[in-house]
């Protein structure tokens, strides 16, 4: 290997996993740790600063998704938002019905709450997706029964980047009087999101996916939606979400979402051109396929499978070239199962094994892309030369 870690600056292409927090965001947060540290629930002067800061952040989040400000509730992240939306609607509406519709390729923060609810007596339909990872709107419509209380379909998939037909599903949900939740954790900052136009009743987002702080998120709850609390306790968030507010975190979330949605069209255009350069370059390697939808995909998502090799090995070699990426290989998962998303798209296990996800971010440049393209073919060749599966 000719490149040592010292020479090459980090080329971070794992923005779907997490992003660095913007220095401006950090600067906005810092005073709320040490100076305006008051508990927003308190009536004295310094606490009012905290309270006002939270309300400003709430407005910024609401603006980003075209929601009414008072319908945004802060949480500890995308996972909490998903858990709250799904379990909260399930428990609050169990007298109306016990059926939930979702897809086979949701994030585990949606799937595992659904599975847990099954143990509590709920019925869950996990809809299949096509080979591009798209769910069919007709399948959603056909799955609805008189017991259905919730449809939860992600806005865009975190692994393969496929964008789901949210607006259409929202329409189906509304026509049938069923609540519609979408996990928009990967969509914020990449796609236009509009809870009004898209008939979204509940929407989850997570700060650290768009240069905000980890451990922050929000749940949008449309007015009138019947939902139990998930975090029970104090009277914070209008008695909807208990727990002393993470004031610096909330401030950071607000700053970050404002930045990232302020010029989303240009950002998306720039990402898309880097993305396509990367995809086209990688597909020149033989026995290589694109996962996810060719056009209906997140502007920053690249997901390629390389036959005959395993993803963790690719990541380790990329790391030695200071490139950070991700894989859906079984070997990197705690459960030693290959990605349920790749399998859900119909990929056989041994091919899902060789997946590589590169997710772009605002600091990535054309040089970064070309650097990756200069490195990957050698890595694939090296690993294939060790592989017992012969290339015909």
């Amino acid at each position, binding site marked *: 290997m000719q490149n040592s870690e010292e020479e090459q600056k980090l080329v971070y292409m794992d923005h779907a996993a997490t992003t660095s927090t913007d220095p401006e965001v950090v600067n906005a947060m810092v005073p709320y740790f040490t100076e305006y540290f008051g508990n927003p629930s308190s009536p004295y002067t310094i606490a009012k600063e905290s309270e006002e800061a939270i309300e400003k952040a709430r407005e910024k989040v609401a603006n980003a998704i075209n929601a009414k400000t008072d319908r945004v509730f802060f949480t500890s992240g995308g996972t909490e938002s998903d858990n709250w939306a799904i379990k909260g609607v399930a428990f609050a509406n169990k007298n109306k019905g016990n059926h939930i519709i979702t897809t086979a390729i949701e994030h585990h923060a949606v799937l595992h709450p659904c599975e847990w609810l099954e143990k509590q007596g709920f019925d869950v339909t996990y809809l299949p997706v096509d080979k591009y990872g798209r769910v069919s709107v007709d399948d959603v419509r056909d799955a609805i029964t008189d017991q259905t209380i919730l449809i939860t379909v992600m806005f865009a998939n975190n692994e393969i980047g496929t964008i789901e037909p949210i607006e259409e599903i929202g329409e189906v949900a509304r026509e049938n009087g069923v609540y519609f939740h979408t996990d928009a954790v990967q969509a914020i900052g990449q796609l236009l999101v509009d809870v009004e136009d898209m008939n979204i009743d509940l929407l989850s987002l997570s700060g650290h996916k768009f240069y905000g702080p980890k451990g922050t998120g929000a749940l949008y709850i449309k007015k009138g939606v019947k939902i139990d609390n998930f975090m029970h306790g104090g009277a914070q968030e209008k008695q909807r979400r208990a727990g002393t507010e993470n004031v610096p975190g909330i401030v950071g979330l607000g700053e970050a979402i404002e930045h990232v949605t302020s010029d989303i069209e240009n950002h998306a255009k720039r990402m898309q051109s880097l993305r396509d350069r990367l995809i086209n370059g990688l597909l020149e390697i033989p026995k290589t396929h694109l996962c996810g939808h060719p056009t209906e995909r997140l502007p920053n998502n690249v997901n390629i499978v390389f036959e005959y090799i395993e993803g963790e*090995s690719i990541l380790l070699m990329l790391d030695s070239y200071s490139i950070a990426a991700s894989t859906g290989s079984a*070997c990197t998962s*705690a459960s030693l*199962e290959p990605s349920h998303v790749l399998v859900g798209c119909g990929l056989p296990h041994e091919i899902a094994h060789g997946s590589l996800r590169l997710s772009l971010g605002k600091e990535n440049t054309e040089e970064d892309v070309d650097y990756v393209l200069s490195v990957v073919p050698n890595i694939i060749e090296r690993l294939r030369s060790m592989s*017992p599966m012969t290339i015909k």
Partner: protein
Amino acid sequence: MAMYSKKVMDHFMNPRNVGEMENPDGVGEVGNPKCGDIMRMYLKIEDNIIQDAKFMTFGCGAAIASSSMATELIKGKTLEEAWDVSNKAVADALEGLPSIKMHCSVLAEEAIHKAINDYRQKQNLPLWGEKEEEKPE
């Protein structure tokens, strides 16, 4: 996510004894039931001694490093000694594996056993069993 030792990274980045072998005396191919990986081990045997070993592996960093280390450990050993090279011995020689990756070293132990038994079968010798008590003395 698992963290690898320097030794693992060394054997992963610069694997020893990787490649196909012409006319091996024994070949063992095993699949990992856990994550679906494949390891193939080739042995060259003369006078009950492993003269050369090579591997081909489709798997993670731990699987590749385990293959590399296992081939290093068994080269020059008698078949009996090689049979006794446990997955733990491979992991120890690698300065440890994350617990979630121990099964990758099991793959290496099993590949050695399978290759030795392949050789023994070709020589019309009785096969050795996997169980502790059935191991040769």
